[in-house]
Each structure stands twice: as C-alpha cells, then as structure tokens.
C-alpha cells in the first residue's frame, strides 16, 4: 500500500513537472514566434523604407518648382510614428537594451527633435530647410541600415538562445516523460503484485471460510448466528437436528420466534433490546448458561448456551452455541432422585432404629419394674438369685438399647446435654467404687488418682459418667489379672480436664487404633468371643465427648495395655434451671417425700407400664384411677377432680399432648390440675410443646419410684401439702442477701406480680398485642426465677409460650394456673415477711 502510494506520488510529481515545463516551453515557443514574427522584422526594415520614402519625397520637393509639402509632411509623420513605435513598442524592449541600438535610436530621436518644429511650422520654413534635410536624411540612411541589421542580428541570436532554451526544456520534458513512464511501470508492477496478493489472500480466505463452514456444519453443537436485530443469518446442521427446522426455514427468521420458548420470549426480547441500546452484556461472553429452548414441534427442552458476539463487516453479529442437554438433565435428575431415595432410606433406617429401641424400652420398662416390685415381696433365696440374674440381664439389655438410641439420637443431632456443676474427684471416686466389685470379680485391681483434678467443672454429668464407665468397662473386659487406673488431671493452661483410663490388658494393634471408634466395630472374632457387646460403646463415647466439646483418644501397645484419654473443657458455671428437670436429676436431688394421699389419674395405654406405675403409686399411699388411653383419660378428667394427672405421651389415636390440651381447654373440674407427662425421651423442643399444651412436668421412662414421687411433690402446688415437701420459699434469697434488701426485693416483686395478675384478667389486657403480653409475662417470669419462686416461674413460662404460639387454650389454662399459683406464692411472701419481722 505504501509502495503504491509512493508510486502514485511519483507519477503525480512527474505529471506536475511535465505540465510546468510544457507551459514553460509553450511560452518559450510563443516568445520565439513573436521574436521571429515578420512584423517585428518588417517594422525594423520598414524604418529604413520609411526613411527612404521621406528622402525621395524631400528630393522630389527639392527639384520641383512647386514642392509637394503635404506628401513630405505625411512621409515625415510616418517615419515619426515608426521611430516612436521602436522606442515604445513591447516588441523591442529587449532590442532597446542593446547599447548600439540605443545609440542609433537616439540618433533618430535627435533628428526628429530637430526637424519636428520645422515640419509643424509654416511651409516656407520647411521649404527652405529641404536642402539640409536631404543631407541629413542621406546621412541617416546608414544609421537606419545599421539599425535594421543590428535588429536582425539581435533577433537571430535571441532566437538561438530561446531555441536552445526550448530545446533544453523539451529535453527535460523528455526525461521527465521517461521518468513518468518508469514510474507508471513501477506502479503497474506494484498493482500487479497487489492484484496477485489479493488473489492469493482471497483464495486463502475462501479456503478458511470453507474450513470454517465445514467446522460449523460438522459441529455437534447447534450454531445459530444472528444479526443485531436477532434475525438468523447462519444455521448449521446440528441446529437442524436439535431444533427440527431446516436451514432454509431458519434463515432470515427472528431467533425469538424460532427457538425461544413462549414463557421466555418477553425476557429474550427485553435482553436483546437492552443489549442493542446499552451494550450491557448479561449472557454474551459469560460462558455456558443453562436455558430452555423450543423445538419446531413446540417441545421445550433444556439447552446449554454459550453466546458470543463478533463484528463482521462492520456489523455486530451474535453467535449462539446450543447443546441439547435433555439426556444430561434427565440423568442428573435421576441421580438427584437416587440420592434423595438413599438419604430417605438412611433416615428411615435411623428412624426405624430409634423407634425399635424406643419400642424395646417399653417392654423392658415392664420387666424392670416387675423385677423391682418382686424384689420387695417375700420370696425364697433361690428365687431372689434368679431375680437378681433377671435384673442384671434386663439392665444389660436396657444398656444396649439405650446405646443404640443414644447413637441414633446423636446421629440425628438430638443429643440433649444437661450441664451441671461437677466435682471430678468425687465423680471418679464414686465411679471407681461402683465398679470395684465387677472388676475384682474379673480378677483385676482398680484404683484412682484424682489428686491433680480441678475442684469444679461444668458438663453433662450423666454423659461424662457414661463415657468413663464405658472406658472402665472396656478395660475390664480386655484385662486379665491386671490393674486398671482411673485418673483425672487438670490442664489449666488450655482450660481442659483430662480423664485417663489405663489398663495392663492385651492392648490394641496400631493399625486398629482409629477403627475402634467407628460404629459397630469389634476388632476381631477373638474379641467378640472374649467380650460381648454391640461395638457401639466407643463410637457413642466419641460422639458424646465431641458433643461436649472435647476429644477422646487412645495410646496402646499390643500386649502391654492401653491408655484411653478424654479431654473436656472445664466449662462455664451454669445456673440451675428448674424447668429442665429430668428424672435422673430428680432422682439424685430429692429423696422421696413422705407420701400424703393424693387422688391421681393415670393415663397409660401400655398395660404393664400402667400396672407398674399403679403399684408404685399405691405403695406410696396414693389413690389411683386408671385410664387406658387418651380418650378415656379426657373422659374421666371431665367427671371427677384429681390432685394430679400422670399422662403417657405416645398413645394411639389421642396422644398425651392432645389429651392434655383437651382437658385444659374443657370447662371441666381438672382444667387446672397439674399434669405430669410420662415420656420415653425429653428433648428441649418437646418440653416447649408440653409446656404449651399445659403439661407441668415430664418424667422420662423407665419410671423409678423416687423420681415419680419427687415430681409429684413438686407439682402438688396448692394441694394443701406444700409445707411438708417444698423447701422454705426464698430461703436461698435470705441466705445470699441481707434481710432488708431481700424484703425490699420481695415487696417489689410482689407488687409487680400482683399488677400482672390483676391486669391479665382485665379487658384492656386482651387488647394488647400478643407479643407485648408475652414480653410482660416474660419479665415477671425472670424476676420469679431470680427470687426462687420456681413454681410461679414455671407457670409464667408456660403462659409466655402459649402467647408466643398464639395457643388460646394454653393461655386460658395458664391464666387460671397463674391466679392459683400466685395465691400460694403471695401467701408465702407474706408469711416470709411476717416471720422475718416477727
């Protein structure tokens, strides 16, 4: 291109120069022509002729008697005009510069100057001057001759110069023409080269185009190219297969009409418009996008789309690569389905396990309870031995069932940790003592060392005991005539407490060290022969420890023994919450209170459980009315008044929660009677549900007498026996505060609670938003908890929950109970004041 430009410039320059020279030479030739013109030469020669004509006329006049002066004058005038012409004419400008010529012209001029006055004068004077004029004119002839000759010579020379100059210019033109021809040749050569190159590039372009066309045609992905208006300008074979339109059908049509499903068309058009106006790219150049497309037959199917834009001949085009992914989507969905099924199966299995364990606990409950009852009856020593064996077996079975249940709960994330304050040294000591008998029976020794233990830690005592017990049990299983050491040590800088159980047993091979914590794992047949077990113990222990925020591990030498360690955080001090009372705690915290006869309704569908509970209650001196299911329970509760109702939770048709709700909601004699749930498990969300339904307390099965009686005592409320079983109200308050402060606090609380109770029955109260009511109840509940009015606190909590859940029946029950319990609590506060002041 540059070369071509240079050639063109060269040609242009040559043409310009030639044009310039041609005009130049034209001028030269013109000048030459003028110089050579006959008129010029003629004028010069004519000056001599004119002179001679005048001379003849003058001589004629000289000879004539009557001279023709008019002719003489006219000839003079002609000569005069001739000289003037030579002096002035542009034709003679160059000539006049010749000094000799100038001299001659001056001679003529002088002649004219001398004679003109004479010629203009009178005839007589002219006539008189004729003779001298003849002489002068004769003298002037040679001058005129010289002048003509000079002119001729001058113009000849001038012509030569001009001719040479013209010739030189012509030669230059020749050279330049040659150069021009050369430049043209070069230009032609360049053009030929360019032409060849363009032919070549066109050919390779065509090849590339063909190749591209081939690629597009054979592409497995559908390719649709559109212009910026969305009209299809390219459509390949794969697209034909994918969408069902032939290429001819597709070309020129709007892509939106062609392949965009009806429900996406508006979005597509909006997207195209947005792209055209703002150039904002949402899909273009964003890689693979999953979308839906429409086939010719209207079927909508999933596609993978990759959209890119390109500028083609100044116009932007959009190229869509589309792949039918129906098969992939189908298999993905199959996979998802399979996964969902697997997960559901897993869940079903876990649920089955949980339900089975739970279901096994109910008959076990019956067996254990029966054994307990049998033990307290008179029988022979032999029978007592059998009974003890039965009890051991049943206990072991219960242990396994509990293990599986814990496992499945832990798996379901349902571990319900109850954190309490623990003295590790005491825990270790008690544990060792309780196991000493079994260990010594196995020929082993056990000792403990808790000298480095911390004074306090906060954890779930039951779970911790379960874990260490499991470790001690394992140590005992795999040790013969050896020693088992239980240690506890504080690791203060990490805030941990470490428990270690060391044995001198068979040990564990290194490769098995990790596996022993896996579920259902017993190491080999010899182990399982040697020691029975589900293989769940360590797995459960690990889950429990992890749930408590700790870790468990083992060091072992095969044949030397093992060391299991458990590290738990020391934990943070907790306040005891009266609402989360479990049977175990109740059992450990309270001794059975002396029984005062109560009228009790026992609602339990399981015959054995019903029998056991009834026996336990009757032996404690209570009067028991039995109901076989929820409906019967509700029916009986509507007929006579009870001091408390024991309600099994899982019953067919109407479960315990529902029955409680009905009793609370009906206008019967027991709508405010304390109801104690009997349940197989006590999860926090269950507690909430129970409280909301109006249940006052829950007992976890299997039942034991102590827990049952303690719970009964705690819910008895205003049954007239409070003084005998409840600790002195506000005793703690008195211990921790001085009298005056305690009195002031109690008085303030009395006012606050009194106010709430009064307002809660007013009409305005019902108009308040339910959240506000719940908040106010919550506030008083908090005060009650702080002051140790646990029963009032519990009632208020139940009421709050009922408000939060918008449970009208629960609210009604809660309000009624509030009025009742507040009466008791208020009496206690007043009694406290009276006592202290008195």
């Amino acid at each position, binding site marked *: 291109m540059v070369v071509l430009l240079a050639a063109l410039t060269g040609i242009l320059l040559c043409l310009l120069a030639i044009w310039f020279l041609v005009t130049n030479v034209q001028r030269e030739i013109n000048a030459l022509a*003028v110089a050579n013109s*006959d*008129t010029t030469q003629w004028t010069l020669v004519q000056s001599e*002729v*004119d002179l001679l004509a005048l001379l003849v006329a003058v001589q004629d006049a000289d000879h004539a008697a009557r001279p023709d002066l008019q002719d003489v004058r006219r000839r003079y*005038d002609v000569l005069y*005009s001739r000289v*003037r*012409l030579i002096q002035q004419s*542009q034709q003679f400008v160059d000539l006049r510069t010749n000094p000799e010529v100038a001299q001659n012209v001056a001679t003529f001029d002088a002649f004219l100057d001398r004679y003109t006055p004479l010629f203009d004068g009178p005839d007589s004077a002219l006539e008189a001057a004729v003779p001298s004029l003849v002489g002068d004119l004769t003298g002037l002839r040679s001058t005129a001759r010289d002048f003509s000759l000079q002119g001729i010579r001058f113009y000849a020379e001038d012509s030569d110069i001009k001719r040479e100059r013209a010739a030189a210019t012509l030669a230059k033109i020749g050279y330049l023409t040659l150069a021009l021809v050369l430049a043209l040749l070069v230009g032609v050569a360049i053009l030929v080269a360019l032409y060849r190159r363009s032919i070549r590039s066109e050919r390779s372009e065509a090849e590339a185009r063909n190749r591209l066309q081939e690629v597009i045609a054979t592409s497995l992905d559908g390719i649709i190219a559109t212009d910026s208006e969305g009209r299809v300008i390219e459509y390949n074979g794969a697209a034909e297969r994918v969408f069902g339109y032939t290429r001819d059908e597709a070309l020129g049509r709007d892509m939106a009409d062609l392949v965009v499903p009806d429900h996406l068309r508006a979005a597509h058009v909006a997207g195209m418009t947005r792209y055209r106006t703002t150039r904002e790219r949402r899909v273009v150049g964003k890689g693979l996008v999953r979308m839906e497309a429409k086939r010719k037959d209207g079927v909508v199917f999933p596609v993978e789309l990759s959209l890119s834009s390109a500028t083609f001949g100044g116009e932007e085009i959009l190229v869509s690569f589309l792949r039918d992914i129906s098969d992939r989507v189908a298999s993905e969905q199959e996979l998802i389905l399979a996964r969902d099924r697997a997960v559901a199966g897993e869940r079903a299995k876990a649920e089955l396990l949980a339900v089975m364990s739970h279901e096994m606990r109910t008959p076990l409950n019956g067996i254990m309870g029966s054994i307990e009852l049998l033990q307290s009856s008179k029988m022979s020593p032999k029978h007592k031995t059998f009974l003890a064996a039965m009890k051991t077996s049943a206990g072991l079975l219960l242990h396994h069932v509990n293990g599986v249940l814990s496992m499945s709960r832990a798996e379901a994330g349902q571990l319900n940790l109850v954190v309490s304050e623990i003295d590790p040294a005491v825990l270790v000591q008690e544990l060792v003592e309780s196991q000493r008998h079994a260990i010594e029976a196995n020929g082993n020794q056990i000792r403990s060392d808790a000298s480095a233990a911390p004074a306090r830690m906060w954890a779930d005592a039951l779970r911790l005991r379960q874990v260490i017990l499991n470790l001690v049990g394992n140590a005992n299983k795999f040790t013969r005539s050896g020693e088992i050491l239980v240690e506890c040590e504080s690791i203060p800088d990490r805030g941990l407490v470490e428990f270690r159980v060391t044995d001198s047993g068979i040990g564990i091979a290194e490769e098995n060290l990790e596996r022993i914590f896996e579920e259902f794992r017993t190491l080999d047949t010899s182990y399982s022969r040697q020691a029975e077990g589900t293989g769940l113990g360590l797995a459960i222990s690990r889950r429990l420890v992890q749930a408590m925020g700790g870790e468990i591990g083992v060091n072992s030498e095969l044949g030397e023994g093992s060391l299991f360690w458990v590290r738990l955080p020391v934990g943070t001090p907790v306040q005891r919450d009266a609402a989360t009372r479990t049977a175990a705690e109740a059992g450990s915290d309270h001794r059975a209170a002396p029984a005062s006869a109560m009228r009790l309704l026992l609602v339990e569908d399981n015959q054995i459980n019903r029998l056991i509970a009834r026996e336990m209650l009757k032996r404690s001196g209570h009067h028991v009315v039995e109901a076989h299911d929820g409906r019967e329970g509700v029916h009986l509760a509507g007929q006579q008044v009870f001091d408390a109702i024991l309600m099994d939770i899982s019953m067919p048709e109407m479960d315990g929660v529902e029955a409680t709700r009905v009793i609370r909601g009906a206008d019967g004699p027991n709508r405010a009677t304390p109801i104690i749930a009997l349940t197989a498990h006590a999860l926090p969300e269950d507690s909430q549900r129970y409280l909301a339904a109006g249940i006052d307390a829950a007992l976890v099965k299997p039942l034991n007498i102590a827990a049952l009686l303690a719970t009964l005592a705690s819910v008895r409320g205003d049954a007239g026996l409070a003084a005998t079983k409840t600790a002195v109200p506000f005793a703690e308050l008195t211990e921790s505060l001085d009298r005056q402060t305690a009195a002031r606090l109690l008085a303030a609380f009395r006012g606050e609670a009194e106010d709430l109770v009064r307002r809660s029955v007013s009409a305005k109260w019902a108009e308040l938003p339910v959240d506000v009511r719940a908040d106010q109840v919550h506030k008083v509940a908090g005060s009650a908890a702080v002051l140790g009015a646990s029963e009032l606190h519990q009632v208020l909590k139940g009421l709050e929950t009922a408000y939060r859940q918008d449970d009208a029946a629960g609210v009604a029950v809660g309000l009624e109970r509030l009025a009742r319990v507040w009466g008791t609590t208020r009496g206690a506060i007043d009694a406290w004041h009276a006592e202290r002041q008195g």
Partner: protein
Amino acid sequence: MCAFMKNILTGLVLAAGFVAAPLAAETLPPPTGEVILSVTGDISVRNDGDSAVFDMDMLRGMGEVTFATTTPWTEGVQEFTGVSLHTLAERLGVASGSIKATAINDYAIDIPVTDAVEGGPILAYLQNGKPMSVRYNGPLWLVYPYDLNEAYRSEVIYSRSIWQLVRLDVVAD
C-alpha cells in the same frame, strides 16, 4: 461565448444587414469634412462613385465603441474609441468575403469579413479620449480588444491591426 453562438449571432446580424441595406444605400450622405476613409469594392452602399467615403463626423455618427486594452506597440493600458468594423460592414452591406486594408505607407493586409463581429475590432479614432495624429498611428487604427479575447492575442491578428488606415477594399468570395 462559444464559437457556435458567435456564428449564430453573426448570421442574425448579417440577415438584418441584408434587410436594412436598400434603405441604408439611400441614406449614406456625402462627406462634409476631410475624407479620412474610403471604401471600395463589393459594397452595396456608395456615396462617391464606386466608393463610400467617410469623414470623421460620419464615422463618429455611426455609434461609438470603447474598450481598454494593452497592445504590443504601446506602453500600459490604452483606451480606444471608434466605430465597430461590424457596424461599418453592416452599414455598407458587406456580409462576406475579405477586406483589403491599406495604410498611408502602403502597408496592406487582408481581413476576412468574419472578423467583423460585435465585440470585435474597431476603427479607433480616439486613443485615451484624444484624436490620433499620423505620428501617433492615426487617424484611424484598426484595434482588436486583445485583452478581452485571447484569440486576438495572436500574430495574425497583430498583423491585421493596421494603423494609419486610409482605405478599405472589399473583395467578394
């Protein structure tokens, strides 16, 4: 003006001349002053035997044309005033042929009648507003408007620019 148009115009003018000729023949008066130009030959209007003769007043009465131009024989721009050769030819019924012009010194040149066009040569009798004496190429000088028309800047036209003109002889083809 292109040559074609010029021809058409000339044709029209000549046609008008034919029509006017018989009337003009009777109205060319005899000269009252010194005769400065005599025309002979193929003319249809005469006032002196075979000739048509003109004094200065007659020429001046035929309509003045004035233009300014440079010439090869003078210095600077000159203003010439005279009667158009075209008007003269028309007046004398000359439509074709050539005119032999002769000067005092017997210089003679043939001028084709086709030169006699409007905007063409004039028989100048004033130079820069003043009558021209013989010494200053007078009394009549056939001047072409050289500067106004490039075609007039040629050697042939220069040779036809006859001064000290005294006689015209019209020769028909």
